[in-house]
């Protein structure tokens, strides 16, 4: 028996590590991975609350988040490939124009 708040604390810690990664990493792909880490942290708290309130819908929400994350990863990585093709760099400091 362990308290439910431990799971919530873990999910908060994962989310914060994702935010830190988003702020300090300087590689476009790693920044994108930090976003995935944040999504995973939020998913964990969804599953925890679904367990607490005995509701299945929380888990279905996580399922939808996974689907959207998969779509987001496909489109995001395609954008990264397009940026790399025109700029030939992945450093976020050097990608400072919206224009291709």
């Amino acid at each position, binding site marked *: *028996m*362990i*308290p*439910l*708040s*431990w*799971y*919530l*604390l*873990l999910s*908060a*810690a*994962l*989310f*914060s*590590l*994702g*935010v*830190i990664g988003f*702020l*300090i*990493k*300087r590689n476009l*792909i*790693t920044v994108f*991975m*930090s976003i995935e*880490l944040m999504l*995973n942290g939020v998913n*964990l708290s969804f*599953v925890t609350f*679904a*367990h607490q309130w005995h509701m*299945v*819908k929380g*888990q*279905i929400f*996580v*399922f*939808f988040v*996974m*689907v*959207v994350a*998969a*779509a*987001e*990863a*496909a*489109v995001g*990585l*395609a954008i*990264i*490939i397009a940026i790399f*093709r*025109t700029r030939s760099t*992945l*450093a*976020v*400091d050097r990608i400072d124009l919206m224009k*291709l």
Partner: protein
Amino acid sequence: MHLILFIVFAGLCLAGAINLLLQTHPINSALSLVVVMSSLAVLYLMLGAEFLAAAQIIVYAGAIMVLFTFVVMLLNAGREERTLGSRAAKALGLPAVAVVLSVIATVILKAQGLEPVALSDNITSTTDLSKVLFHELLLPFEVTSVLILIAILGAVALARPAGDEHGRRTGVEK
């Protein structure tokens, strides 16, 4: 038993996430993200979410991370460099994130009515999940398939080379 499992896999999860931040090469970050996602699948299993644990392994640790490593290798991404921007982000961002985390932790620790978790209570079977998913939430489920289709088309359109014959022709036509 439950406590040991939680400590081991929560520790793995946090260690993987911290390693993701410390590594400078993207491929190392991607592999530590796989560790985070696999240990999260075990935590889902401990919370009684069987289907999600399997989906986490297949979709996240499998499909999405393969896509990430594929792109890292395709673009031949090198080590990242430290710049002025990253130092400023560290100086301003870390205290801000620490404040946010401490606020969230305070709220969680003050929350009333959270039951302790036992290892085998309240297991959600795939049958229960699909009953809700395919009856009440059928429309959102079908809309998701349209979303996936659009994402595939968008990815193909974006990743196509700019000098491509078809891309040029449709771009010039007005």
